[in-house]
Structure formats: C-alpha cells, structure tokens
C-alpha cells in the first residue's frame, strides 16, 4: 500500500484499486461518487415531484372534479403535500447541496475529499429510506394530506392511520442526513482549504454552501423537535399542540417556520453561488463586489432566522409582533438587492457569451427579481391579510423556488456536466430546454398572481367557476414545463453516453476557480498534493 504515498503515477494506479461495480457506489466514501448519486437521486425525484404537479394541474385545469372522483378530495391534499415535500427535500436540497456541494466544495478549495467521508456515505444512504417512507406515505392508509407544513391539529387529531407518521419519520431521516452533511461541509470548508485560500479568497459557491449548511445545522434540530412532538401527540398521548389539554397549535407553527423560513434560503443560496460563478465565467470578468456578495449571503442567512412569523400574519399574533416581523422581513430585500445588482455589474463591461448555463443564470436573475418583489409586497402584513393562503403566495414562492433554485440547478448542471462526466451537452438542445422551461414556468406561475388577487385559496381541489380562466392557462403551462423536464432527462442521458469529450478548462479564460485545473472528467482522486493559491 506504500504506492498510495508515491508520485502521480502511483496515485493513478491506486485509483484503480478501489471497489468496482455496485460496491463502488454502495460503499462509496468518494465525494464525487456520492455527489453523482445525489444528482441522480434528485433527478429521479424531480421527475416524480413534477409528475405529481402535473396531476395537481390536471385536477385544476377546469372547475369540477377532473382527475379524481367526486368526493375523493383528500387525495388532492395528498398530492400537494407529496409534491411540496418531494421538491424541497428530494429535488432541490439533494441537487444543490448533496450533489453540487459534494462535487465542487473539495475541488474548489483544493481538498482531496470531504473531512468525514464515511459520514458522507451515511448522509446519502439516509436519504433512500427517507424517500421510500415519504413515497410510501402516499399509499399508506389514506395518505398524508396535511400540506408540507404539517400543521397541528390537522396532522395530529385530524389524521389517523400510518401515513402522517411515515411522513414525519421521513422528515426525521432527511433532517438527520442534512445535519450530518452540514457538519461535514462546515468542517471541510473551515479546515481543509489549500494554503493561501483564506476565507476572503474562497469561491462564492463555497461561501454559499457555508452559509447554507450553517442555516441547516441551526434550524433542522428545531424541526426535529417540532415533529417529534407531533409524533408523540399522535401516538403517545402527549398534548404539546392540543389546546383542550393545555397545548398550543400555534406553537407548532412558530417551531415549524423557525425551521421553514431559513429553509427557503437553504434552497436558494447555493443557487446564488452557482449563478455567481456562471455569470463571472461567461462575462470573462471577476465577480463584482466579491466581499459584498459573500457578506450579503451571510446577512440573508442571519436575518433569515428572525423573520419566520411573516408566514403567520393571520394566526392571531399581537399587532406589535406583526409590526416587528413586517419590518424585519423588508430588511431581507436589501442584501438580496445587493446580489442582483452585483451580478448585473459583473456582466457590465464583460464580453458575454450566451451559452446554455448563462441563459439559465440570466433567466434566474430576472425571474428571481420578479419573485423577490412580490415577496416585498407579501412582507406588508396588511396586504398579506388579503393574500395569505391564496394563489398569489403560490405564484410568489414558485418564482423563487422553480425559477430561482431550479434555474440555479440547471445553470450548475450545464456549467459543470463536462467536468463531472468529461462529456459536453448539446448546445442547441440545452438552449431549447431553457426556452421551453421559460415559457412553461411563466405560463404556469404568472397567472397564479391573478387568481390570488381575485381571492382563490390554496390547496382546494375544486374552485368557483370564475377562477377557471387563469387556472386553465396555469395547467397548460405546467404541461409545457413537464415536457421540458423530460427533454432534460433526454439531454442528460445523451450527454453522458455520447456527448463530445472536453478538456480540463472548456470554458476558457473566464473560468478561474480550482475545479478547472483538474482533468475532465475529474479523476477519482484529485488535489492529492495540495495546490497553492497565490
């Protein structure tokens, strides 16, 4: 085994002695293999979650019951619950954090792997039973129709049967997985940076992951506590959330959103990181206002912890509490604005090539702005009295999730797929995917603002006939969006099997972070001798 400590040639030989076949994946402690597994996992569940959203839109395409039988309204709630939880926990988080985080944090900071490779393996494999239990909850008993927020007492006294318990245990496992990943990522980022790479020289993607994992580490234990109390209320006779026995249903909402609000920044911050790299690369310029960009993310993360109750404006809080949450929420717009304008300033004066990753990044910047400004409207609690639990909110958060976080995922995928697979995607297909998605998601989500203004509540399987027009448009849009998702699967398979081979730095002068110094595909082991950052 002394060869492992030898020169470059010996290292190559060593790489081929690792486990092969299924063992390579099941036993993997390699950050790239684990990252790949996370990305495949996210892709599979993205399609599942997308399929459920198509079912939702089919049901809502016209007034009356379309897809589901009259009276089978509970099934609709099961769909919306599963759609929300799958997209958040099994698409966006695994793709952005488990997938790109695992792949590129070590590559970007010049580390050979994550700090705790076995923990990394465990984090991934926790996700499998978690996903099985969540998907299983759809079929167990009547299914969990609580909404992704799982509010008590609907989730306690309002739901008998095993489904909600399964969903809760699924969230426990996914949460544990994320906590372990976060410990791993934070340790790696703090301790394993190459000589010369101070925190203030660290790539913005790594900064975004650092802030994200801190948010997860601090917020997930609160969720775990909250849903454990749900579990004991359901099964062991406790009454944490049962008013009749001295508990408080609103306590659950506070605990849930103390996790839930940082969670939405968990979903979008890594996308911010990716967009920063893509914009700088294709503008052939260094990122504008690097320190401002890094600390804007820190600020978003910090303020993100003290705004949670803006999800609860109609729950009956005291007016002074509402006033505080109104003010704190408005503050978030400032660091977010800094990020938007810094991206624009990075592009300003650049020599911009509009390759597919750049299209996604530019699309993300504008669509996120649209989602951001409706967020500012919703911060104003008197207006949100009208908007709370209407489709205006659904439109708002899909602009920041589907067009913020998901566009970030696609930007990252097209940007890095050559590095990960050694093969390049087809530019024409990639651009087609972008434009098809752009048409689909805007057609789906923009009309939701109108439905919400007219007063249409969320989470209803049937609606008054007057809402039918915009709902029809939304449904058509979602079919186009899902067709685009299927096109992506085709593009991904085609790229991996027969894409053109690429070299180490296929984007050229604009791509300056350390991952572009290693071969494509990145060898099994990288940075075994530490790079020095000047």
């Amino acid at each position: 085994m002394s060869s492992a400590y030898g020169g470059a040639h010996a290292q190559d030989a060593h790489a081929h002695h690792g486990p092969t076949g299924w063992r390579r994946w099941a036993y993997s402690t390699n950050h790239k293999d684990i990252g790949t597994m996370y990305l495949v996992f996210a892709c599979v569940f993205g399609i599942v979650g997308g399929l459920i959203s198509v079912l939702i839109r089919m049901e809502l395409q016209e007034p009356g019951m379309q897809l589901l039988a009259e009276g089978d309204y509970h099934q609709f709630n099961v769909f919306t619950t599963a759609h929300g939880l799958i997209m958040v926990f099994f698409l966006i988080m695994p793709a952005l954090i488990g997938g790109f985080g695992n792949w590129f944090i070590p590559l970007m900071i010049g580390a050979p792997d994550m700090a705790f490779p076995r923990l990394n393996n465990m984090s991934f494999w926790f996700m499998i039973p978690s996903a099985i239990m969540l998907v299983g909850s759809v079929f167990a008993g009547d299914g969990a129709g609580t909404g992704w927020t799982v509010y008590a007492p609907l989730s306690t006294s309002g739901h008998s049967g095993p489904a909600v318990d399964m969903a809760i245990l699924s969230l426990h496992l996914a949460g544990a997985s994320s906590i372990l990943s976060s410990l791993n990522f934070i340790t790696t980022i703090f301790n394993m940076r190459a000589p010369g790479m101070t925190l203030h020289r660290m790539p913005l993607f790594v900064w975004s992951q650092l802030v994200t994992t801190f948010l997860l580490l601090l917020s997930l234990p609160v969720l775990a506590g909250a849903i454990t109390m749900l579990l004991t209320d359901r099964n062991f006779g406790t009454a944490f959330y049962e008013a009749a026995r001295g508990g408080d249903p609103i306590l659950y909402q506070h605990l849930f959103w103390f996790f839930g609000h940082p969670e939405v920044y968990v979903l979008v911050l890594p996308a911010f990181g990716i967009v920063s790299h893509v914009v700088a690369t294709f503008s052939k310029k260094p990122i504008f206002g690097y320190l401002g960009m890094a600390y804007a993310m820190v600020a978003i993360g910090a303020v993100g912890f003290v705004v949670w109750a803006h999800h609860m404006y109609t729950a009956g809080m005291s007016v002074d509490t509402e006033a505080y949450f109104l003010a704190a929420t408005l503050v978030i717009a400032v660091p977010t604005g800094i990020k938007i304008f810094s991206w624009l300033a990075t592009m300003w004066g650049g020599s911009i090539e509009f390759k597919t990753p750049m299209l996604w990044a530019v699309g993300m910047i504008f669509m996120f702005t649209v989602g951001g400004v409706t967020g500012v409207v919703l911060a104003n609690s008197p207006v949100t009295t009208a908007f709370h639990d209407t489709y205006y909110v659904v439109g708002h958060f899909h602009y920041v999730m589907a067009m913020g976080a998901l566009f970030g995922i696609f930007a990252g995928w097209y940007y890095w797929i050559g590095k990960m697979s050694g093969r390049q995607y087809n530019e024409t297909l990639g651009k087609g995917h972008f434009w098809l998605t752009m048409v689909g998601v805007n057609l789906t989500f923009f009309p939701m603002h109108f439905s919400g203004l007219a007063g249409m509540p969320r989470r209803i399987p049937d609606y008054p006939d007057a809402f039918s027009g915009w709902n029809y448009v939304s449904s058509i849009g979602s079919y186009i969006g899902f067709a685009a998702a299927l096109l992506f699967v085709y593009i991904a398979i085609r790229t991996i099997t027969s894409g053109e081979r690429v070299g180490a730095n296929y984007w050229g002068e604009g791509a300056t972070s350390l991952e572009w110094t290693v071969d494509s595909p990145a060898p099994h082991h990288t940075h075994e001798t530490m790079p020095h950052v000047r």
Partner: protein
Amino acid sequence: MKMVRKAAGAFVAVAVAMLAMAHSASAQAGFGAPKPWQMNFQEPATPVMAEVVSFHNFLTVLITLISLFVLGLLLYIIWRFNAKANPVPSKNSHNTMLEVVWTVIPITILVIMAIPSFRLLYKADVVPDAAKVREWYGINVAGTIDIKAIGNQWFWSYEYPNERIKFDAFCGVGPIEGACFSQDATPKRPRLLATTESVVVPVNALVRLLTVGQDVIHAWAMPAFGVKIDAVPGRTNHAWFVATREGTYFGQCSELCGQGHGYMPITVEVVSQQRYQQWLTSKRAEMAVKNGTQFAAN
C-alpha cells in the same frame, strides 16, 4: 419625513375616493364574488379594504418599475456587452460608490413603503370604537354587532351572542356530501361560494368578529372586506369590519382543514338597518321553534 406623511395621507384620500366611486358607480347592490379572468382585487366593500387596494396599487407600480428597471439593464447589457459587441472584457470589479448607492436607495424605498404599511396594519388589526371609525373614514357607525364564527370540519357556525342567535352555514343547500354541486348554483348563488345560511349584518355597522376552531384550524376570509383571520382551537381571534355597501359577499375557508377544505364557503349579506331587524325577528322566532337554544339552556 413630511413627504412620507403626505404620501400616507394620499393613500387614505385615494382609498376614500375609490370607495365613493364604487358607491356611485353601483347604486345597485354590491356583489362580492370573483369574475372570470379577473386580474385584480374584488371591489372593496369596507374602508379598510379600500385602503389595502390603494396601498397595493402603489406597491404594484413600485415593483413593476423595479422589475422593468432590472429587465432594462439586462437587455442593455445583452445588447451592449455580448461577445460580438464587446470582444475585450473590462477587469473592473469594484466601485464602492456604486455599492453604497444600491444599498441606500433600496433602504430608502423600503422606509417609504414601511410607514403607510405600519399605519394600515395598526388600523386594520386593532378593533376601533365608533369614534375612531368616524375620525378615520367619516362614517357614522350604525351600531356595534358582535359575531362569533366557529370553524368546523367542514362548515361554519355563527353565533350572535347579544341576540341569542345561533346557526350553521353549509356549502350549497345542506349538510349533505356533494351539496356544492352545480345543480343548485345560479349567477346570484355561485357554486362553492353560496351557503345555506348567510351572515347578515346592517350596512355601516361596526362588526366585531371573533373566530375559534372547533376541531382543526380554519380561517374566516372575506376578500371584499379585507378580513382573513384564523379560527384556532383553544384561542379566540378577532377582526373587525364596517361594510359600507349593501349586497352579498362571498369568501372561502383559507387554512387547509382536511378533505372538505374547499367546501366550506362564507356568505355575508349586508342589508339596511330595517331588513336587519326583520331578519333578527325571524331568526329569533326560528330559534324559539327549535325549542330553546344552547343559549337558553346555558
């Protein structure tokens, strides 16, 4: 600061003017239901909702301008700094002045936004007395009515505690599953919005609404009134409204409460003082026939 206060004053002026316009435009009864292809709020029937509408109009103009500004910059950048138009990139990556500007200007915009927002929040949330309502909106309040709305799976129950009236309001014609089917719908009684019994209130009365949940959390919502308040088991929430236009208004439960969530609508009829008294009389008689209500029993 003075400018901001002026702006806040303008909101009230615009809101009151809008409400007046709504009144004169429809001397006929108001009808608070969504319309096909509707793109904006329903016509407000309370001064608070009128203020929400005008504040939201202001916000919409603001966010549209901001979005168009970002879009304009992006389009200019795409046109001016694409690789063909600008083959040699600059290396400029710092400009402290610019960074200060795009921090300070948003803060200023947010402060201008926050002041009317706070003012409206305190007005809408804290239940006023008749004098306050007159001071704010120049409305002579015609009495004060307390109504308790109780959310059940899946219908609303109402109590008028001072009038000893209590009744349930189901979707459509009755407490039968599927009662919200289209057969009993008419243009005046829309599907999934009309209820078997309406909440009846006199025009210009100060209505103090209390909500509570019987089983799970529900939310009592009335878009044209600007009211939405959760009905939570074990606690009593409050809201208030002064409806200034006679008519029929519809709302829907606005907190996921189980399978019948989409099937527990809310109907409020705003009527003249005289018709309200008639309704009270008939309702009381009905209660007597039912042989002692819970109120009598208690």
